[in-house]
């Protein structure tokens, strides 16, 4: 099995955010979705650094939208998950499920 088959923690979160947002996924919505669901402050730089890495791996694709006045005439960069990205997220999900199977996570929480 290739060494880089699984997504890293933040990569996993980003791909899941893209899947949730579908065709509305760009920097602002991805960042807000992650903040809303994970309750952790995320920088736009971290989002783009991870998205660029995922694009290099072929897990996401991006295209530019039209420039808008509220963005100072700058365009949005929309992202979508590729088939390869979907396969990677499925693989990662399955690995996590397999690793947590049979564990009493409530018991772990009470110790932490």
């Amino acid at each position: 099995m290739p060494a880089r088959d699984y997504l890293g923690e933040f990569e996993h979160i980003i791909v899941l955010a893209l899947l949730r947002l579908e065709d509305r996924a760009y920097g602002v919505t991805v960042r807000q979705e992650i903040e809303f669901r994970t309750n952790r402050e995320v920088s736009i730089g971290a989002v783009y650094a991870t998205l660029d890495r995922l694009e290099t791996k072929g897990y996401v694709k991006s295209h530019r939208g039209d420039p808008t006045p509220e963005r100072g005439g700058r365009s949005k960069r929309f992202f979508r998950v590729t088939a390869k990205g979907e396969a990677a997220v499925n693989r990662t999900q399955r690995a996590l499920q397999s690793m947590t199977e049979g564990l009493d996570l409530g018991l772990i929480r009470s110790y932490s």
Partner: protein
Amino acid sequence: MTPQADFVQPPRLAVWLVKLFTPADAAESILGDLLEEFSRLASKSGVAVARSWYWRQTVKTIPQVAGAGFRAAPWSTTAAVIGGFLLLRFVPHLLETAIFAVLHRYRVFEHHFNAYVFFATDGIAIGHVIASLFVGCIVALAAKGREMVATIALGLILCLMAGVGYLAWVARHWPMDDAMAWMLWNCTDLFAIVVGGAIVRMRGSAATPRPSDA
């Protein structure tokens, strides 16, 4: 959106810093996203909260995009830094030789002693700063798109070397009068390298059309 928020702009220095450290193609999306959220936050929670948010995002974003820039082209960036390091071994020395050649050719020592002292001391130090600025520009041009990462990396390496050299020199020659001046000129040289990178970066981003203009 309130009328006040319509005219509110994010902190200029923060915008400039993001532009400085972000590759031109990524800067358009990042600055657009930041402005969009800033405007929304300014109208919802007030300008002060929005400005503070913008600064927090800037401080967190710069290392992320700089690191991503390096990871995207580690070998060419490293080569630019090593090239700059080697140039710095050569260019200031060449400049020093040229200054002394001119001083001896025109016998400045005999005719204008004060001018000779100036050129042989501060003149050489100023020459070093100009040489550092020149090398900073060359490194930035070589590290196209990663100008600030390359020049800051070179500056930090030299800073570390200067710090060690300073401690060793002070230990050997203590007490000494000009240690602080030596360190200050060294710091100015390092700063000049980074300024060279910033000049090339800003000229490059002014000349590059936005991706949305294409």
